[in-house]
């Protein structure tokens, strides 16, 4: 019984390793691997949290998180359910402010500026740090109005400029060809995968520097997931991306760095390749190999 279990685990490990080597050896990805090496020494991190703790009321959800996120890279946050990775993600653009009774201690720095400082304007912070949610949430408006929402509330009214932005964002989100003839139709009529790409396009329309993604592909079929992943790959040329995912393969495929969270603590952060092939902490290894979580 025990031997069988071990065997099974070893098989998973081997399969994971095999998949990972394939991934690393593919030409496009090995290129980015080098790029990561080049970006690591480059000065200030885009986002940094220092001894950051988070509380829901009296319950502490995050304990002393120290984490640096590099500019123009993909950082994956993995960990079992309830480990605090989504809470961490949502605290990076102060989304948790909406929930009553939440509190943050420590520092969250965006380009060296503390985003929880009292003089910070949350609205302009969220324009710089966009977010895509697990469930696609198109507004019950037309496709055009969905994308134009962010620019419009920022005060842009010129029709031609809005049209430019809508076209640019839909192209960036690789959905332009599918919807260009029906921009006036309701966004609710799109398929699940299209809706999620629409939401990404909508988040891009405010010209953010950082894009936070909370399990953006978890509700999608494999084909749509692949498109979202390709899209993330494209977007990291220009944006800093932080993505929460439950899908190990996805984390391995798209991220340069992976952070493993467990029980509200950051257990380990490192280059994705290292985390998946040679994790330092035993907890990480157990989680990645499927022995726990």
């Amino acid at each position: 019984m025990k031997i069988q279990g071990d065997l099974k685990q070893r098989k998973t490990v081997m399969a994971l390793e095999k998949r990972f080597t394939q991934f690393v050896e593919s030409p496009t990805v090995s290129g980015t691997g080098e790029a990561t090496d080049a970006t690591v020494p480059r000065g200030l991190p885009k986002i940094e949290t220092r001894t950051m703790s988070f509380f829901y009321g009296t319950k502490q959800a995050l304990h002393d998180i120290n984490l640096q996120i590099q500019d123009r890279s993909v950082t994956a946050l993995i960990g079992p359910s309830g480990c605090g990775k989504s809470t961490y993600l949502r605290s990076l653009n102060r989304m948790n402010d909406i929930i009553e009774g939440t509190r943050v201690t420590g520092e969250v720095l965006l380009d060296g500026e503390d985003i929880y400082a009292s003089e910070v304007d949350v609205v302009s912070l969220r324009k710089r740090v966009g977010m895509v949610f697990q469930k696609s949430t198109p507004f019950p408006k037309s496709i055009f109005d969905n994308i134009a929402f962010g620019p419009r509330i920022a005060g842009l009214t010129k029709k031609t400029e809005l049209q430019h932005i809508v076209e640019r964002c839909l192209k960036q989100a690789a959905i332009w060809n599918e919807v260009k003839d029906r921009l006036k139709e309701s966004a609710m009529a799109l398929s699940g995968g299209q809706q999620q790409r629409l939401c990404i396009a909508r988040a891009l329309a405010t010209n953010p520097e950082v894009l936070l993604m909370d399990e953006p592909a978890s509700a999608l079929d494999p084909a749509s997931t692949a498109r979202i992943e390709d899209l993330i790959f494209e977007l990291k040329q220009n944006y800093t991306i932080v993505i929460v995912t439950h899908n190990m393969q996805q984390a391995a495929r798209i991220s340069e760095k992976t952070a493993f969270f467990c029980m509200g603590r950051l257990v380990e952060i490192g280059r994705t390749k290292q985390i998946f092939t040679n994790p330092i902490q035993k907890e990480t290894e157990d989680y990645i190999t499927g022995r726990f979580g």
Partner: protein
Amino acid sequence: MSESQQEQLTGNASPKPRAQAASSLRRRFSWVRAREQLIQGVLFGCSLLSIVTTLSIIYVLVSESLIAIPPHTAFFQEISFSEFFTSTKWLPQHDEAHYGILPLLCGTLLITGISALIGLPMGLLIAIYLSEYASPSSRKWVKPALEILAGVPTVVYGYFALRILSPLIISPVFHDWLGFSVMGKNALAGGIVVGLMIIPMVASLSEDVMRSVPNSLRESGYALGSTKFDVSTKIVVPAALSGIFAAFLLALSRSIGETMAVSIASAGLANLTLNPLDQIQTMTSFIVDVMGGEVVSGSTLEKSLYAVALVLFTITMGMNLISQWVLSRYREVYQ
């Protein structure tokens, strides 16, 4: 020892299960089933009663106003449709009686219009406050306050309008200050109190639909750099628009049907006027007015009550049906 006991038990028990098995397919009297059937019957009877009531009301309205059983004559067999719907005079108690419903429709429209101007925006703003802005602790105060407003008897509203609103506020402002002539009973006073009356209804129905807008939409809005006001007015209200529209229609049908406050505060001569400072007569207050006096049974005046009631019934039922239709369509969006 135990084996023999078991044998004995099975030996004794074996004929019995067979008998039960044989009888279990046949229906036998059971108290449980009888009680279930009785309960079902009582419940069905209750729902049947409300349907029968509705149908008999419709029957009475139709038989008195449209088609009567031969010895009788219905209202529209004495007064033509064209007189009823086009004549501008409503003088049923006059020697030379006129039965044109336009002044009554106009009075009802005036009351409904004024109440809509006050009740709908106020109700919607309160709903936005309750659904989007209010903290749980302030909700705890505002909601019961609204319920108290909803619980005030309409006759008290009418009295308030006649004794306080009209002489102490409307008359000083419009007569003493602006120089209009103001009647003691006027449509404005009645319209305002009916507007106050529908606020709780608009607020709580609209709040319900606004709260049912999924939180994920709000979060997406905030994530795009929206303020609370942006989220409320550009996401929540548009998403709940059809539900809000249905709430408005229900509130308006309440305004149309409101009787007591209007009778006390506004009703007098059936003038065909849109002047809110004049006295008016609505469909409902006319019915109260005639019922309060002496009506000769079988007279045209008596039958006119049914004709007016039929018009009123048709309008409010139409509005309720439309609002239900809108609501049911809205529900499909987020399911």
